[in-house]
């Protein structure tokens, strides 16, 4: 028993040191990459895209399932985006609420017989509608496919632009988000296959006319903790991986993809649990197999504001689903591991995801239990236990505060001292007990996946907070 505990503690110790080393490298890479990006922005003039006939058109796909409460705000915001060549396709995925009726009345929809060729399979499309108010809007009414991926595939069939953006119907895109993404595509020396923008927490902010009017930190602790998580995931993780051209995921809430490449890989996999990470990994695979030179950058300025779960229960379901999605994708792409053909993606990125993302809940929970047990049994020095706990806590805080600093340097959306103060305070609380609960949710997700529970769980939605300002 005791030798086993010793071994477990040693493994945890080494695992923790290596993972922290990785995170530290990512933190430094993200700082450097963000600084370079800011310098690059100084020589970039966005307005050349606004009036250029060469700006690549973008189709925005908005899968909507029971989104009646938000859909008007969302579509209004999309129609008012600063982008000269835009098509907006809302896919009503068999909603049981008033989503289609709201769209019909708000945007004066009329049935139409425009060209729709189902190149990628999806649940049957019942009708297509165009808007009498704005001819850039197309609405697809289809039978429920059960997944966002199925709805997005139907939208992909109807899209006519070389690039498509997929966004969630409970999200709000910032007005200049697409221009900033378009600039990245337009000025790239190497073909850009996909671009990810930042997804930020909408909860607590005020929305009016489909636009954010006032950015505020949410009030509930559970939401503020997610703000820090999002900042860390995007401004540290994705920024760094993007700099190394190994971006493993472009968020399902907001990403722009080459339509041609999407069609080539068969669109979204409808039975994927995490359709976003699945698509990106399949795109990497297809491009690396073809020996293409390509880029999949993350750009920190284009912002998509999204609602995050407001209750522990909903958050637990979401995190379990994300973990299931990760396991699903990693298992499906296990043949890419350590294959030179897949370059650094197969030799660095995928092993990193296996060891430090997928296995993290198992290692952390088993490791923590064994450390506590060893301390109780007197096998482990209590001083060392305390030192190790303090180190783990301090290092995790360092990374979280690093994310807040990145936010300060790059986009700086939280202007008030009180907001920044609260964020920093929550960095303290994030690593106990929230982190451990999160690990538990993720472990549960893996267990559910292994037991074959891969059903799509409906998430709760609430209307945006609005203001008359």
């Amino acid at each position, binding site marked *: 028993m005791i*030798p086993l505990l*010793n*071994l477990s503690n*040693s493994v945890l*110790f080494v695992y923790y*040191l290596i993972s922290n080393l990785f995170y530290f490298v990512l933190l430094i890479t993200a700082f450097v990459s963000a600084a*370079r990006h800011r*310098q*690059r922005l*100084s*020589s*970039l*003039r966005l307005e*050349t895209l606004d009036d*250029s*006939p*060469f700006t*690549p058109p973008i189709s925005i796909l908005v899968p909507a399932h029971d989104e009646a409460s938000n859909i008007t705000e969302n579509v209004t915001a999309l129609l008012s985006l600063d982008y000269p060549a835009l098509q907006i396709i809302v896919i009503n995925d068999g909603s049981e609420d008033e989503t289609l009726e709201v769209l019909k009345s708000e945007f004066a929809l*009329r*049935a*139409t*017989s*425009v*060209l*729709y*060729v*189902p190149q990628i399979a999806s649940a*049957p*499309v*019942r*009708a*297509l509608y165009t808007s*009498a108010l704005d001819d850039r809007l197309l609405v*697809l*009414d289809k039978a429920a496919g059960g997944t966002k991926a199925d709805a997005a595939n139907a939208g992909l069939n109807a899209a006519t632009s070389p690039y498509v953006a997929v966004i969630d119907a409970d999200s709000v895109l910032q007005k200049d988000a697409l221009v900033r993404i378009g600039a990245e*595509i*337009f*000025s*790239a*020396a190497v073909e850009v296959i996909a671009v990810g923008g930042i997804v930020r927490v909408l909860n607590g902010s005020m929305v009016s006319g489909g636009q954010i009017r006032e950015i505020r930190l949410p009030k509930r602790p559970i939401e503020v903790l997610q703000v820090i998580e999002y900042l860390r995931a995007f401004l540290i993780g994705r920024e760094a991986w993007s700099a190394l051209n190994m971006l493993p995921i472009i968020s399902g809430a907001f990403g722009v993809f080459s339509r041609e490449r999407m069609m080539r890989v068969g669109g979204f996999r409808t039975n994927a649990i995490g359709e976003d990470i699945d698509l990106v990994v399949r795109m990497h695979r297809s491009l690396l197999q073809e020996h293409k030179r390509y880029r999949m950058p993350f750009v920190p300025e284009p912002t998509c504001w999204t609602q995050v779960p407001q209750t522990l229960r909903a958050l637990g379901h979401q995190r379990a689903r994300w973990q299931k999605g990760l396991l699903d994708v990693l298992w499906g792409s296990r043949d890419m591991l350590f294959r030179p053909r897949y370059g650094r993606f197969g030799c660095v990125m995928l092993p990193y995801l296996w060891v430090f993302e997928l296995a993290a809940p198992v290692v952390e929970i088993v490791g923590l239990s064994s450390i506590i047990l060893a301390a109780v049994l007197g096998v482990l*020095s209590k*001083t*060392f236990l305390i*030192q*190790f706990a*303090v*180190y783990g806590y*301090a*290092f995790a*805080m*360092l990374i979280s*505060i*690093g994310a*807040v*600093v990145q936010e*300060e*340097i790059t986009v700086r959306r939280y202007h008030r*001292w009180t907001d*920044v103060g609260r964020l*920093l305070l929550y960095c303290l609380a994030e690593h106990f007990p929230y982190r451990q609960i999160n690990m538990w949710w993720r472990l549960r997700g893996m267990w559910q996946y292994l037991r074959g529970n891969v059903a799509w769980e409906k998430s709760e939605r609430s209307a945006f907070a609005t203001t008359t300002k």
Partner: protein
Amino acid sequence: MAFVSSGLEQFAPARVVFGAIVVSMSGIALLLVFIIVRRWMRTRYFVRRDAIAAYVRQHWEALVSGKLLPTNFRTDGLAREVLEAILLDRIEVAKRDELPLLVDCLRRSGVLDVRIHEARTAAGWRQRSALVILGRTRAPEAVPALSDGLESADVETRVAAVRGLGKIADPAAALPMLERFTDGRMEVPWGVLKNALLSCSARQPEMLTRYLRTAQGTRRDLLARVLSEVVDSASCDELLILVSDPSAEIRASAARGLGRVTAEIALSPLAQLASDKEWFVRLRAVVALGSFIEHGALPVLVRVLGDRNRLVRQRAAWALIRSPHLVQDVLREVVAAGDDYGLQAVVAELDRCGLYRSVLEQLKHLAADSDQLTGSLDRARASLLPPGHPEGEPAAERTTKEAWVA
């Protein structure tokens, strides 16, 4: 296991952990101090910047006219930056007679010299930033420094130079780009180059034609594409030659460009391009013909309604119903042509635009042959709807089940 334990003991984990705690705590302290100091410095910076901006705006007329010499702006970096930002913003919206005064002010304040110097001697982002700013000045003396930037080994610097030259928006700024591009000596993302050439050649489109003759392959396609966006009736001779070019991309650009010239010149070559073997050339020709529907393009467009490509047919229908007062004539021509596909395309387009009912009403009141016309339209529309579908609600089920063929 013993090996692992002894290895770890030698590694002295307690000492490592203690060191890591110290490093982490120091890191946290540094980051917190950074946030506080940065916020404090930004506040001070904006206070000072606002004060300078207020001074510049108060003395704007005197500064621009040269009555007040901006000598202290030469030595104070922030003051120069503020003056430069205000001047560049004004230059972007300046009228022709105002521009020389503003550029003179840039010269007197030393901003221009500093930027030319940076563009030539600095490296990295400072050079790139200087190149773009130089372009925004629109000063002719900036062109040589910008041209030098095109020779940089770094692609980002070349992109900045191209952006800068594009901002100058003068034919003289296009020449260095065109020479290097057609010779294959310059590699930059083509989107940026197209934008720059577009703004520089807008006043003198014929300058592109000389390079179009010597360029090869896709470089030639790019120049033709830019030409199609700037060409006018006075400079369209080359465009007429391109109508018979072996490259489909070039013919498509020619079709696009012909939409910008007069009907007398464009109609005949566009009619030729509307029968091209490539569908996208025909599509571009149809879109261009849409501009000349009142000048004789009607018969060609009615003919194109029978095109073998659905997108071309749809676009022809779109072009045909754009002029409400011609809709009757259009429908009469289409019905007379006896082409079911063509009639369906027009009906579908009327439906898509929500005009079907109103056009039907219009025909009933105005046209002598209204019964024949409305009957044909209704039959065409019925053929678009699946059996048993309620009238007025064209369903898309048919599109998914039967997969309309493009």
